């Protein structure tokens, strides 16, 4: 009996392996080998549209493979081809590149290679770039150099970073504005909120990426997801498929960039913003605590795009990820923008 049970289990495993989910069947999947890193690229959605939205994920150290889990990007894939890829040391990237020269320039170079590869493989399609969070900063750095922006019909900056020191200050203001209310809230964890005040007193000028505490504080203030339960309902995670029938593995959870991100602390791509002249949609969650909406005002002000071709949209009841928190509004805004400028 025990032997039969084990054989049945063995058959179930093999059968399970034969069932392929959308993660293993949809779109094109290839790798870019650049400077020691092997970057996975997933082109998914409506390739026949001839319009490609190249995403640049956040972090540093997150993954582009998270975008297609959100409802907002699922909607976009119906209309356009969306390019998801993982940066070096991040997500499902592989290889063991040299760690002695981690610089923003290296990430910009990777972005450039991904764009070149997409243009080559798909016959120079209509391109838009969408950067989220750190990806907003990286895409600004890329677009604002060497006239890269001229390869694109438009830029979508989704709660994107731009200037580390400034953001750390804006984030501090955003957090400290809300802490008194939390301290007075009945049943709140007063010791925690007092700790937040004490921490900022001891660290009046935190670094942008190296100091992780402000990100925890922002999270505790729902600065990442406006309403976590609602976001989960809107974007159910297909755990079974992800674990048993997708490209994901445990290696996905290991980022090579978690220990030292000081190379990204003092980045300021404001000069690059002054070189970007293409149509731009700046899409921000009003309740974003990681890259507060005031950063959107700063980007709008410094972007060289003519006023008629740039717009800043702040979304109500939305934090750091509009594609998760408000997928319909995210989709509507992006489609309006792409249809106008494609």
């Amino acid at each position, binding site marked *: 009996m025990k032997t039969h049970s084990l054989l049945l289990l063995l058959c179930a*495993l093999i059968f399970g392996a034969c069932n392929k989910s959308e*993660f293993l069947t949809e779109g094109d999947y290839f790798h870019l*080998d*650049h400077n020691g890193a*092997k970057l996975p690229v997933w082109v998914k959605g409506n390739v026949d549209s001839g319009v490609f939205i190249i995403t640049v994920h956040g972090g540093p150290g997150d993954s582009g493979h998270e975008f297609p889990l959100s409802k907002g990007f699922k909607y976009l894939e119906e209309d356009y081809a969306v390019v998801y890829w993982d940066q070096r040391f991040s997500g499902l990237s*592989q*290889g*063991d590149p040299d760690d002695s020269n981690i610089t923003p320039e290296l990430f910009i170079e990777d972005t450039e290679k991904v764009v*070149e590869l997409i243009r080559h493989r798909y016959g120079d399609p209509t391109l838009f770039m969408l950067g989220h969070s750190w990806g907003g900063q990286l895409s600004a750095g890329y677009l604002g150099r060497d006239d890269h922006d001229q390869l694109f019909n438009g830029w979508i900056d989704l709660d994107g970073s731009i200037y580390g020191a400034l953001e750390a200050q804006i984030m501090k203001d955003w957090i400290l504005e809300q802490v008194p209310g939390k301290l007075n809230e009945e049943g709140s964890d007063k010791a925690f909120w007092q700790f937040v005040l004490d921490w900022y007193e001891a660290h009046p000028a935190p670094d942008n990426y190296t100091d992780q505490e402000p990100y925890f504080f922002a999270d505790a203030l729902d600065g990442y997801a406006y309403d976590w339960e609602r976001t989960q309902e809107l974007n159910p995670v297909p755990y079974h498929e992800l674990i048993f029938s997708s490209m994901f593995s445990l*290696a996905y959870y290991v980022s090579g960039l978690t220990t030292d991100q000081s190379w990204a602390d003092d980045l300021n791509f404001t000069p690059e913003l002054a070189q970007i002249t293409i149509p731009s949609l700046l899409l921000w969650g009003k309740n974003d605590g990681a890259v507060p909406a005031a950063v959107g005002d700063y980007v709008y002000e410094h972007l060289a795009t003519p006023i008629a071709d740039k717009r800043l949209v702040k979304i109500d009841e939305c934090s750091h990820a509009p594609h998760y928190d408000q997928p319909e509004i995210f989709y509507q805004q992006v489609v309006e923008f792409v249809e106008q400028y494609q």
Partner: protein
Amino acid sequence: MKYAYMTALLFSCLLTHLSAQSNLKAGVAYFGHTLTHPGGVLELELEREFSERASLPFRIDLGYYRHARNHDGLFLDAHIGLRQYARSGFFWEESIGIGILQTMLNGEDGVFEVGEDGTVRRGSVFNQPDLMPSVTLGLGWDLTHRQDRKTLLWLRPKLYWQYPQKLVSVYHVAVQAGFSWQLR
């Protein structure tokens, strides 16, 4: 340094085995990277028996698996562990291992490189070989209950590391299900 210690430990165990009363087994198994991404393992095991109930197995595994849109893995690793048998033939075991893992990129559309001048060419699927330390647990049955002709059916979850990857060591989980039979 810890790898040097582990390697020394494995070699000393092997030497102990060679001079002891042992049985030699061959085995074959399904290897599932994150359970369902399929592969196979061939194994050769030298089992030193302390008593009817306890033994010290030394095992060499040669395996291959394919995780679509992630990587293929070819590995050769050696394990040393402890196995305990119940009167019913049920056994449980734990082992540590170390080996070499060669991974190949898996994406149906291939690998590309983009040159300085923007030219695109095909790239290599091969990553550099990595060190592969591991911890394996096991449950199984001795189907024969015969000391001179064991046939074992087993299930082994395995946690292994791939070092260096992404500047650090990334970890993987796999489940192996198979059987082994005594050669001598």
